[in-house]
């Protein structure tokens, strides 16, 4: 049952490689989302320069950073789907967050965010998620609690050829999270 208008949710992937399990997970989300959520994908941050305050001062925010920030501002909520690199957030994703965090009308402020990760190991990228929670606190995002989506042993859970998520438990968890997230975003919006 859908209460109120459809919510516009932006999906951000933390990996840049084409065969990424996290990109594969992100592509699954529209099919698993409740009817109250409309999902679209953020543009890649692949061509962001490395953050340097001197660039910002000399020539302002790069156009691609502005476009990314606009997409975040326009969305009702975000879902970040990210791998873990060296027990933490991928540098590229963190660099994108660092850039937009410096903006006036800071895009993450008061934005509901859900987190998902997939990884080959037993912890499924959870360390990147906990570090993201910490960083998102600093920019006043409102991070969704549970259920967490932590896809462990990813190579066993995606189809080798199509990269579709085929693990029933993981699929069910994603559905639960998206349903819970919709309710959460509506609660946050109602109390604003």
């Amino acid at each position, binding site marked *: 049952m859908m209460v109120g208008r459809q919510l516009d949710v932006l999906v951000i992937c933390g990996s840049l490689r084409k065969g990424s399990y996290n990109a594969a997970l992100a592509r699954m989300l529209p099919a698993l989302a409740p009817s109250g959520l409309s999902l679209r994908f953020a543009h890649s941050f692949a061509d962001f320069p*490395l953050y*340097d305050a001197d660039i910002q001062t000399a020539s302002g925010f790069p156009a691609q950073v502005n476009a990314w920030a606009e997409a975040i501002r326009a969305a009702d909520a975000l879902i970040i789907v990210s791998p873990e690199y060296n027990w933490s957030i991928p540098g590229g994703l963190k660099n994108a967050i660092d850039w937009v*965090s410096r903006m006036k009308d800071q895009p993450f402020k008061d934005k509901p965010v859900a987190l998902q990760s997939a990884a080959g190991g037993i912890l499924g990228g959870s360390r990147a998620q906990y570090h993201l929670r910490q960083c998102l606190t600093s920019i006043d995002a409102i991070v969704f609690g549970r259920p967490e989506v932590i896809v462990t042993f990813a190579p066993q859970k995606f189809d080798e050829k199509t990269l579709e998520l085929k693990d029933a438990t993981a699929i069910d968890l994603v559905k639960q999270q998206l349903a819970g997230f919709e309710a959460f975003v509506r609660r946050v919006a109602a109390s604003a």
Partner: protein
Amino acid sequence: MADLNVLTICGSLRRGSFNAMVQRALPSLAPDGMALKPAPSFAEFPLYNADIQNSTGFPGPVNVLADAIRAADGLIFCTPEYNFGIPGGLKNAIDWVSRLPNQPFAGKPIALQSASPGPLGGGRVQYDMRRAMVFLDAFTLNKPEIFIGNCASKFDEKTSELKDETTRGLIKQQLTALAALIAQLSRKG
């Protein structure tokens, strides 16, 4: 010739960085026998993408930094904290280097320093760095920790020199402790 060659890596790219000022102060605070030199910059690294690595290999500047790390007896990171975490640019550099064979951080003694305008002086970035360095099999020095809080007041406004005596004393202690850690780790069992 110095006995110990220590590479210093600054996590900020801007010219007026307080952490770069700390980095520049280090040679004057080092114990005898320790030579410090700044690492090659990571400013030109592309954002990590395994597809780049697989199609064209590791970019030249990544190999240059990796070789400098391998050649050093120890490392010191002087880094700001961005959004309660590691600056994306520095993390991107670590991510690139971490994928190399003969992984450069493995077994390397490391010391951490951070300066920031806030009261914690970059405490959070250091604990995140410690975590990443565990995965990379580096050996991060325990104490003393160097958190330079309210940092603007601790540097000379004109010359940018680190003038705070307490901080200078603490850094001297840390560099001596790093020398001891390097000696300890290089001792044959």
